[in-house]
């Protein structure tokens, strides 16, 4: 089954927008904008970590079977 454009690009677009926001908010603002920047920039790292972990869990469970 072939995926639609949004199925393939949905997550990458969200992560890219978060990064753009994070890069600019710390540059243009102070205080709360720094906090928002840290959260926005950390989210792609969290997403990467989650999927990496998920694959590890699946791997070990498939081994057990």
């Amino acid at each position, binding site marked *: 089954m072939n995926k639609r454009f949004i199925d393939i690009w949905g997550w990458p677009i969200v992560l890219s927008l978060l990064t753009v926001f994070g890069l600019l908010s710390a540059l243009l603002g102070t205080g709360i904008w720094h906090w928002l920047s840290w959260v926005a920039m950390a989210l792609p790292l969290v997403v*990467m970590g989650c999927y990496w972990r998920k694959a590890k869990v699946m791997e070990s469970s498939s081994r057990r079977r």
Partner: protein
Amino acid sequence: MSIRTWYLTHKWSSLVCTAFLLMLCITGLPLIFHEEIEQLSGVVEAPAMAEGTPNASMDAVAEAARQQRPQDVIRFMFWEQDEHPNVTLVSMAKSMDASPDDSNIVLIDSRTAKVLDEPPPDHGFMYVMLKLHIDMFAGLPGMLFLGLMGLLFAVAIISGIVLYHPFMRRLDFGTVRREKQARLKWLDIHNLLGVATLVWALVVGITGTINTLSQIVIMVWQADQMAEMIAPYKGLPPPVKLGSLQDSIDTAKQAVPDMHVSFVAFPGSMFSSPHHYTVFLKGNTPVTSRLLRPALIDAQTAKLTDTREMPWYVKTLLLSQPLHFGDYGGLPLKIIWALLDLVTIVVLVSGLYLWIKRRQHTEQRIADLEHKHAATARGGVR
């Protein structure tokens, strides 16, 4: 362009730049934290004095520096209120046109004009990291070469984005096929990490390339705006006796009241003319504190010659610096910068691994994809 062309673009742009990008990622990692590392290794601080103790005349500060290093000339004076409160940093060298590497910094208490420290030039670990990262000890050619590598990195990222689509046509986002061959697993990790960090990698890559042009940008600025501002002095002999530095700084402050002084370039130095103290002022917001504004002060009369906003190309350079260094959002942003740097290392190494392992397999996969793509395209027309 066909998928094959994009694939070849990705492969060759990556292959050429990967070794250098790895070096840049590894040397860049400690550089992200250079301020913290310098703090840990101990910097001399100005002693505590009553709040609001006024500064000494900067003429006295300059005199103290000259007495400390009588054989040298002062090229620059600068202030880093956050990192070194109440300290004037004086950059001295044998002559005005000596190499920047041959500079000596003298730290002077801004309030008492007493010399605090004269650290020997750093040739330790951080210096080696910095030199490797900037120009690999190869001067301007090395710097421009690394800029080219940064451009190739951008090409590799963009072609990688194009290739992401066909590779992910049958996979959910983030799928890592661990149960199959190791090559598939690393392909999936390469795709996941690459696409999740693409904006950061592009921004840091391109701003890095812009930074490699800094010397050229400064030369253009000198030939363009600086030359216009000092045109009335053309052909005049350089002044023998200089006027008051403090008066010159005061003149600059009056001319640009809403900004504060960041550094002063002395007459004859790189950022000035033989006839002027050039006082660079910066604003108070995160952005305007990066956008320096020069005020040229006649070094004999301490009167304002001209002050202008920097042209767009200098502004681009000045704003690309924080976006490359990641030093504009506190320690949390630096940690994020370091983590993204590590992720980029994984993307680079996995890419290299994918190329070494099973080259033929990838060729076959591209052929399949091209075939299928053509079939879908034909289907779409009908």
